[in-house]
């Protein structure tokens, strides 16, 4: 057993590796430059055209890329054509890198392509260096053309842009950039004239080592064994803060200086046109005063600048020794940061998991606890239709229906909505109670702690099942009433048609010999006759299997829509449930002093009220599927000889079913268990987005639509891991259910 689990884990690792590779590959194919996305165009200063701006935006870009680990090669090794240089990844900007690689794919000459790229950058700087009095239009033309050249590779496009630059350079004020342009044009020409395309078909493998993007993503680049000394980081932050404070002071001084200069210029102007109000002497005095002030302030500003300079030097010195870490890596729970709001993915997912776990727990619990007994029961239902009701007594049904009708009408009489939920809870409690009382004898009879527990669970689940059926019946009734009220003639026609057809059919059938029925009636008295425990082919069996089948085939997102339309919209008269969200807004928003306004009971009922519809949608499908599986395997088991032996021994029916047959029929349910987690996740995508519940499914759909790849790929990888864990768990459960299963 232990060895088997160990072996499974060893298989687990390569599987995980393959899947993580797949998802990593997809994330690399995802469009968009993460760095640009994170900088959000905040550093588009390059477009203003100043050399300093260009350089600073490039710095910003490089820092961000370093933070994200994108300055590293993609993988441990790369299989590429010999034409591509090994260190292409060192060009930090993604668009530039892709453009160079495109150019290489066209001409196969990496050195020429790099030379062209360098010439292009020189051209960009030369354009930025153009004197400010240069003709604005031509300057703008050059700048735009150069910017476009960075992502153009087609010969026609490049030629067109080069021509545009050439034309703009003919303006006399911009001719300083002419030599740089000549170099660019020659570089491009050289690349075109010296292609080495054969290199594109020669494979080459280059090894990059562990400092690569995949390794960083999976395992992180932070040290594993010791924590990082954070003092230098704090020093940098500290210095930055101090510099900021000084900068603020300096800026206010600069402002004052500006004011003084303006005043001085005003006085100088006044001096030129002397007026009676102020004498020339006093003006002169004031001007000299202002001049003195300004020189003092200038000195102060200079000293501030010096201080800032020393601080920034100090900071740069420290910064040089610092290592930029990308993160701890996937295996250590660091999933990166969201592109949308820069928050860690792990935090966002933790918040979203809350609702998903609640809903899925409820839905899985409900579907298992209801479907297993139902499946077993439906496999052994007797031919006698009335016996269906023996597993749910009449009083329960009557009480439930009456109570519900009362409560449903309360909501129309202006009772608060949560009263409805409370009523449902009471009904469930009452039903459970009645079932327990009804089954006391059965519970008392069952032996041992396990047997007793099981008897109680069985009883309770029967009550739950009843609630299910009741909800279903009531919805159908409500729908039928609405339909009849809205389209009376139509329904009349349809009902008439159906009745006519069925009447006709019955007449036809009556003329046929009732061979099968005679046969069945004869055997129906023997509880464990030739056909064993099973009830295949009876009317009730047909109805129940068809219902389950229909439930299983109903797409949950459609049912969710239908429920939301017909049970939450006022215009259809049945606004029983809230139309979205997991909590009422006024309750969810109540914080601080208001928080106490709503007790825990109110909160609980409110959440329950909101979650009923989504949980119903998530549950019914798996409920139907599990019941069918359970029924199928039970039918298979019940046919076997040892069940007949047990019958012959005179064991009670319950004992045969639950003690002998049940355990052996558990296998498909166990297989199902392995797919519970991924199904839960993908199920939540639909339901949560329809009901507007901020869970995992909602988060991942939002991330997919918003191109927030870190979240998307984290969800995908986690779902894959969960599937694998599910497989492992179901393998182990196999051996628990059946000791004959051995692992070798």
């Amino acid at each position, binding site marked *: 057993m232990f060895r088997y689990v160990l072996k499974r884990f060893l298989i687990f690792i390569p599987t995980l590796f393959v899947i993580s590779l797949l998802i990593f590959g997809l994330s690399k194919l995802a469009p968009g430059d993460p760095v640009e996305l994170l900088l959000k165009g905040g550093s588009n200063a390059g477009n203003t055209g100043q050399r300093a701006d260009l350089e600073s935006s490039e710095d910003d870009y490089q820092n961000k890329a370093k933070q994200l680990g994108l300055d590293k090669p993609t993988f441990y090794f790369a299989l590429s054509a010999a034409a591509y240089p090994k260190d292409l990844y060192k060009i930090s900007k993604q668009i530039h890198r892709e453009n160079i690689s495109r150019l290489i794919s066209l001409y196969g000459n990496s050195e020429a392509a790099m030379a062209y790229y360098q010439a292009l950058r020189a051209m960009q700087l030369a354009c930025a260096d153009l004197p400010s009095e240069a003709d604005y239009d031509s300057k703008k033309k050059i700048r735009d053309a150069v910017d476009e050249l960075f992502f153009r590779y087609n010969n026609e496009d490049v030629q067109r842009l080069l021509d545009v630059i050439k034309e703009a350079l003919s303006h006399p004020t911009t001719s300083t950039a002419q030599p740089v342009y000549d170099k660019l044009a020659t570089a491009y020409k050289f690349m075109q004239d010296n292609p080495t395309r054969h290199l594109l078909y020669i494979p080459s493998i280059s090894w990059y080592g562990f400092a690569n993007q995949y390794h960083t993503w999976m395992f992180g680049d932070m040290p594993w064994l010791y924590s990082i000394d954070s003092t230098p980081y704090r020093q940098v932050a500290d210095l930055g803060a101090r510099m900021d404070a000084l900068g603020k002071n300096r800026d206010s001084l600069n402002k004052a200086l500006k004011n003084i200069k303006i005043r001085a210029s005003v006085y100088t102007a006044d001096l030129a046109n002397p007026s009676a109000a102020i004498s020339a002497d006093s003006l002169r005095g004031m001007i000299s005063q202002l001049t003195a002030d300004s020189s003092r302030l200038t000195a102060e500003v200079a000293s501030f600048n010096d201080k800032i300079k020393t601080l920034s030097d100090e900071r740069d010195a420290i910064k040089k020794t610092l290592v930029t870490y990308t993160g701890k890596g996937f295996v250590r729970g660091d999933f990166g940061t969201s592109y949308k709001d820069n928050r860690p993915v792990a935090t966002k997912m933790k918040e979203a998991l809350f609702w998903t776990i609640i809903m899925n727990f409820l839905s899985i619990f409900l579907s298992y606890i209801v479907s297993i007994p139902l499946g077993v029961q439906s496999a052994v239902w007797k031919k006698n239709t009335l016996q269906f009701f023996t597993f749910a007594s009449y009083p329960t049904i009557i009480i439930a229906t009456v109570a519900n009708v009362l409560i449903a009408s309360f909501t129309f009489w202006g009772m608060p909505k949560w009263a409805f939920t409370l009523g449902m809870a009471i009904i469930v409690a009452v039903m459970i109670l009645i079932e327990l009382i009804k089954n006391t004898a059965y519970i008392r009879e069952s032996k041992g702690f396990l047997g007793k527990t099981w008897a109680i669970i069985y009883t309770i689940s029967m009550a739950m099942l009843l609630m299910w059926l009741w909800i279903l019946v009531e919805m159908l009734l409500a729908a039928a009433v609405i339909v009849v009220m809205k389209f009376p003639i139509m329904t009349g026609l349809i009902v008439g048609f159906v009745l006519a057809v069925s009447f006709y059919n019955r007449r036809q059938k009556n003329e046929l010999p009732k061979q099968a029925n005679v046969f069945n009636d004869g055997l129906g008295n023997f509880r464990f006759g030739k056909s064993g425990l099973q009830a295949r082919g009876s009317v009730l069996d047909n109805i129940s299997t068809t219902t389950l089948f229909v439930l299983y085939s109903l797409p949950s997102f459609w049912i969710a829509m239908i429920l939301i339309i017909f049970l939450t919209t006022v215009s259809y008269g049945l606004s029983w449930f809230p139309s979205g969200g997991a909590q009422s807004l006024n309750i969810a928003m109540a914080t601080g002093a208001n928080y106490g306004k709503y007790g825990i009971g109110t909160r609980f009922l409110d959440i329950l009220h909101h979650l009923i519809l989504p949980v119903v949608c998530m549950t019914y499908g798996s409920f139907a599927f599990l019941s069918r599986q359970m029924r199928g395997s039970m039918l298979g088991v019940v046919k076997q000889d040892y069940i007949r032996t047990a019958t012959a021994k005179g064991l009670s029916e319950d004992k045969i079913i639950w003690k002998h047959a049940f355990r052996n029929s558990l296998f498909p349910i166990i297989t199902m268990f392995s797919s519970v987690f991924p199904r839960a996740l993908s199920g939540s995508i639909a339901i949560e987005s*329809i009901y507007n519940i901020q869970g995992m499914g909602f988060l991942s759909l939002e991330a997919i639509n918003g191109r927030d790849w870190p979240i998307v790929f984290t969800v995908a990888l986690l779902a894959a891991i969960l599937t694998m864990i599910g*497989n492992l768990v179901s393998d182990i459960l196999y051996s628990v259910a059946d000791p004959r299963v051995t692992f070798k």
Partner: protein
Amino acid sequence: MLFFWKTKKVADIAAQEVPQDYWSIVRRQFAKNKLAVWSLRLFYGILFIALFANILANEKPLYCKIDGQIHFPVFRQWLVDLNIAEWEDKFVLKRWHEHNYESAIFPPITYSPNTIDKKNLTYTSPFQEQNLSPYCRKHYLGTDALGRDVAAGMIHGTRTAMLVGLISMSIATLIGIFFGAIAGYFGDDRMKVSRIRIILNILAAIASVFYAFIVRGYNIADGLNNGELFLQIGIIVGIIAGIFTVANLLAAVLKKIPFLGKKVLISADLLIMRFIEVVNSIPVLILILCIVAIIKNPSLTYVMVIIGLVSWTGIAQFIRSELLRVRRLEYIEAAQAFGYSEWRIITKHAIPNALNSVLITIAFGIASAILTESFLSFLGVGVPPEQVTWGSLLSASREKSEAWWMAVFPGVAIFISVTIFNLIGEGLSEALDPRSKQ
């Protein structure tokens, strides 16, 4: 007494006349399941709607006489799509319902899925008074926010759904049969390959990755952006097939050298089952969402191909388990004794015997493919916005919950098609089950 005798005689006569070959038995078993039979008939009906969607719902008339000339616009559209013919100017300039026809026959539903009826904008209910242009019939199932006819959308959505179901499952079947047959027929003990062949095949795998994907990386990307998915797949498959053929021909020559020709046992079953395990632990829906969201120009072909690429494992497992049984049968041994090649035994003798069980998986697979596609278009991911599908119709009802017809009809269509395929699968699995044979 009388009718017992009668029925017995009838049964005897029936027994004499009924053919006893495998497929007729299966057919008889299948016919016992009334639901499955009706599902099959319904499937034919749906297939009919899908095939003739253009004739059933179209804004163009089937036949029209205008200015003394006779036209067949619906059929001409096919020629136009094939670039054989062109539209006359008057048909391009004027909307179809605005002409003055001398006589015209319109399809039952006089709207194309993308026809915008300006007189019935913003969710016209099927029971509401509708203001109709001449030549236009009623919107039987209402309209959506833009005044597009829901019935036309449903009919063309049928085509989409069937295409997705059938194409994705044929891709899955091809892949599944390939892997399943290798794993099942060779098992862990029958695949003996010479050393040189292994080496050359590994080299060929690397080379084909290089030449099919890396060298042509930009061509593939550009091609995909131009919507040439199948062309690109064809080129890729061609290159890979070429490289492997060359490698294997070379191996056939080189294995004459004793050292290189030494046989090594490969456990094909183990390898393929591991592979299947990996594919099975991929969360399909999330993977599809990821891939589809990455693609720049969404198109249904991607959805089909991706669904096909991830859902072959069930078929492979079925084929494998069948072939593990079949390969022990005597006629396979006889075929081997005749000296037939393994390839011939697998394709001609082994696989046909295992194919029927695959039908079950295919039926269920189509159901789930249709469900996946409608879910994707419901979410609005991966399907172009102008493409009308059941899922996209359904998602329109999210914006206005009063428009019940936008929710009910497409949902019923999805439900029915999923159900019939499930029922057919169910019926097949009962009919093909040897235990239920009589």
